[in-house]
């Protein structure tokens, strides 16, 4: 299915014109599960989408399933706790690996020697990221086998309802929010298998969870600067790129060393800043970036995509 990623929609919505440009006619299914308790505070979103909107209410449905099936909630909590431990250990290694790579960007020795060492250091970070993806996948596979969502009685009814609504919709719009919460709900309801050929339009956290790799980032958190972290694999509905919503606000785009490290670390994936007005389309084989779109480059610059 075609996937369109947009910049944040709250202040300068472009989702309606995007739907028009994609030729979408008919009701649009919406997922706002990343907003958690505020899932149904979606009046503004409905206005942005225009026409008939059907919120799939994945967060609410999930909450009701938890009430009926406390074992499921317990199992998901256990998985969450396990993943927290996995992340803590990953972060421990990541900090050292990233510090080494960063230090090598500013060494006084022979540039050829330093460049070779830097390549080794950034490769170690890439390897670490891949290993982390594998570890998380192992945890997820074990728990998914235990949960057995497709055949779990408590999920059967809600999954069917969601499938029916989505089946009657011309497109699916996925808003952002808490990416882990959103991703879990999308998986629990098997959304990737239900989408079919209809267009998917997603922004902010919604754009992040659809890719092959979810990268968390914030260059100026209150507890001090850290490094971008790989969360886990996304749904894989688009490939070859990592979107960075609110890049102007969340990334120090003028810090060439940080941009270099991020772009080099993610190679060969494209690192696409997704600020307001941005649009990137994936047709299943390649990306089309709207005029004005930019990319994080290996030399530390943020350049207009060619």
């Amino acid at each position, binding site marked *: 299915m075609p996937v369109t990623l947009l910049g944040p929609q709250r202040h300068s919505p472009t989702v309606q014109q995007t739907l028009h440009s994609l030729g979408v006619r008919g009701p649009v299914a919406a997922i706002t599960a*990343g907003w958690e308790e505020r899932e149904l505070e979606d009046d503004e979103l409905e206005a942005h989408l225009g026409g008939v909107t059907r919120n799939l209410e994945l967060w609410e449905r999930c909450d009701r399933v938890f009430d009926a099936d406390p074992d499921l909630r317990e199992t998901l909590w256990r998985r969450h706790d396990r993943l927290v431990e996995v992340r803590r250990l990953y972060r421990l290694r990541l900090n050292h690996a990233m510090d080494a790579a960063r230090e090598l960007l500013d060494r006084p020795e022979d540039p050829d020697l330093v460049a070779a060492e830097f390549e080794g250091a950034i490769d170690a970070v890439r390897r670490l990221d891949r290993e982390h993806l594998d570890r998380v996948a192992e945890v997820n596979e074990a728990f998914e086998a235990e949960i057995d969502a497709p055949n779990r009685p408590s999920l059967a009814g809600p999954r069917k309802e969601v499938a029916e609504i989505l089946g009657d919709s011309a497109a699916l719009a996925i808003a952002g929010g*808490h990416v882990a919460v959103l991703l879990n709900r999308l998986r629990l309801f098997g959304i990737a298998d239900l989408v079919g050929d209809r267009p998917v339009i997603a922004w902010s956290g919604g754009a992040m969870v659809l890719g092959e790799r979810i990268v968390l980032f*914030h260059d100026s*958190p*209150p*507890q001090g600067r850290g490094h971008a972290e790989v*969360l886990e694999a996304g749904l894989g509905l688009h490939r070859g790129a990592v979107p960075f919503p*609110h890049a102007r606000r969340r990334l120090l785009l003028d810090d060439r060393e940080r941009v270099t490290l991020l772009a080099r670390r993610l190679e060969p994936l494209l690192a696409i800043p997704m600020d307001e007005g941005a649009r990137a389309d994936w047709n299943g084989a390649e990306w089309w970036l709207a005029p004005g779109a930019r990319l994080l480059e290996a030399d530390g610059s943020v350049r207009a995509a060619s």
Partner: protein
Amino acid sequence: MTAASPSLRALRTSEEVDAFLDGKSFPLVDGDRVTFVFRGEADTVALRHWIFGLTSRQELERVEGTDLWFTTLDLPRESRVEYKLEVTHGGDTRWILDPLNPHRAHDPFGANSVCHSDGYVFPEWAQEDPDARPGDVESLRFHSTTFHDERTIRVYLPARFRRRARYPLLVAHDGDDYLRFSGMKAVLDNLIHRLEIPPMIVALTNPIDRLTEYAASERHAAFLVDELLPHLESTFPLIGTPSTRGLMGASFGAVATLSTAWRRPDVFGKLLLQSGSFGFTDIGDHQRGPAFDPVVEFMNAFRADPGRPASKAFVSCGVYESLIYENRSMLPMFQSTGMEVRYVEARDGHNWENWRDRLREGLSWLFPGPLWMVYE
């Protein structure tokens, strides 16, 4: 002398004093120099401050022929100082708030005037934010079998609290003081709203006999770990693992925090230690008075065998406190335990607004919020 001094000394008439005072904010801040000013009939006027390292009493100079008094202090940028004026008139001496300065800080003993030097920024995240959905503070009456008495504990429940969710737990010493003098509720509301800390439950405890309970008392540790914690975990939906539990306190409350974590390691994974009264000796007696006897005994025992009280500790202290030396000295010791330690100093004293100003950095480091996870 500050640039204000010559013009102050040149004043001669009441009208000139009026004109000088008109429209100005006091104390007068000029770079790293601050001039304190008092107007009124007096025999002597003195500045009383709590800056360790400076003489705590500094007389103001009277401008000849007027009722205007002043003195100037060197005060580095980003300083925040609490003070009073000691006014003696007709044999009567009183400590008063600075009538020319509307800035006040409150504590359990009353209020002080507050002077901010250049560069100090009031933390906007500590002010009530109408956009931040407020949490609730419930009072919990609690019978302690350890102390054989009734205690009131305040429990902060975050906005949108849900019984079906699970929350981290922070237990605070001197909870009511944190609420009243450090704006703890607004801080929690705001940091949660900004995703800088996760929605969490905070148990704000209060002592009955503070100097005994908080002076590294074993009974206090037993009360927290064997009594309060199980009660909280059976009453509220808590995650209930050491890495999601924090313990915090200031001054003697920091001693109570550290001693509880030392006596009962692996219960509270995170410690927030503010201006800890970490008196210790290398040899001989201490000079801090009898209340510190059990503290010094504990600190010496801790230094001899620190163990690993927690996995993370945020330690802060004001450089204008006498305790700065003990806190600095303890840093390598804390680090040697294997705890992950962050240490922060501020140009401030031993007071509740200093502790308020460090809450954002401390809490968001110990309990990072979902900021990394949320992309709206």
